[in-house]
């Protein structure tokens, strides 16, 4: 679990290089990503559900991103985009395709549905945090 979290930290930083994140926020966004992934692992172990794990970890990442954005006076996207990377359902997309290739339509559609569910969970989590932070804010 420790190794995986370290992996998440550096994976998010590597991804930030590709996205040209501002240099001074590299470590911060890596930390946000790593904490999110740690929660993902805990929820997955406790509840056994990828969807719940993606939802809760994205919720946490979004919360930290909003706080970091307000503290650093930077757009939320800067932290959010790299932070949610580990929960993005790349694995489900891959498995869905690989079962198409090995002629197993049942498992393939199972993973296709999982992809959609995880995407939906991530979307909901981002939306909830966005809405919470916009409460009481005048236009």
């Amino acid at each position, binding site marked *: 679990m420790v190794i995986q979290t370290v992996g998440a930290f550096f*994976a998010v930083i590597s991804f930030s*290089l*590709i*996205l040209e994140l501002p240099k001074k926020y590299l470590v911060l966004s890596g930390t946000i990503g790593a904490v999110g992934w740690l929660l993902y692992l805990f929820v997955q172990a406790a509840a056994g559900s990828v969807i719940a794990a993606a939802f809760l970890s994205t919720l946490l990442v979004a919360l930290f991103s909003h706080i970091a954005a307000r503290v650093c006076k930077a*757009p939320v996207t800067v932290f959010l985009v790299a932070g949610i990377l580990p929960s*993005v359902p790349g*694995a489900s*997309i891959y498995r869905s395709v690989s079962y198409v*290739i090995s002629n197993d339509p049942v498992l393939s559609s199972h993973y296709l549905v999982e992809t959609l569910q995880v995407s939906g969970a991530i*979307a909901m989590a981002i939306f909830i945090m966005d809405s919470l932070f916009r409460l009481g804010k005048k236009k």
Partner: protein
Amino acid sequence: MNDKLLVETAVLAGEIMLISGAEIFRVEDTIDHILRKAGRNTAEAIVFSTGIFASLNDPSIEAITVARRVTVRNTNLNRVYLVNDVSRKLCADLMTVEEAFERLKEIRKTVQFHKRLKDMGYMGVAVFFTLLLGGNARDCMAAAVTGAVLAAAMEISQKIRLNDFCANAFCAFLIALTTLFLEKWGLSGIKSDIIIIGAIMPLVPGVIFTTAIRDTLNGDYASGTARIVEAVVIALAVAAGVGAGMGLYQWLAGGYFIW
């Protein structure tokens, strides 16, 4: 105050943000804030994922309207951050419009990380994702090779100006093929599935998807749906590429699969 320059500045700021992958409401908000500095009656900005319209009007002046078409897209969060900073300073009167315009022209060209460093980024994502998904040292070594292939494939497709769909499919195809052949010849016993998953991660449209969701839920339906479709198309391209790579390998390796 020079209204014309102000509108130009606002639209330039919006254009940079839009190209660099900011959400629609942030772009509109930025343009709005800058335009409002003119103190005219009407200051409107309409932003789509493919273009910007900004207009400034008042009984005392002739209306100024600027339209700008945006075709390229190149995620660069540093530019979003810098433009945000400029607009903040401009609105707090810490910067004149002329200064802001010059600064924005600079920002349009800023690149923080060298190309080689970005190649390292692709390798890094592949290696550390393999680690994150529970790979061991051998898996990570294989992932480094696959990541390097990905970086090279990216560069090639940029050089020959491959369109986005084909570029993504091409990269995913090479990733699958490289990993499976590594498993067969070089490093037998590696977990090819998690290596492929790690390596396709930079291609999977997580950023576009996030922005699409935030656009849609903010009420920018036109841009939101456009970006969701963009994300789906990219995901399909990646899936097609990986599928083609695995299919070719299966065919070359004699028609049986060991998972």
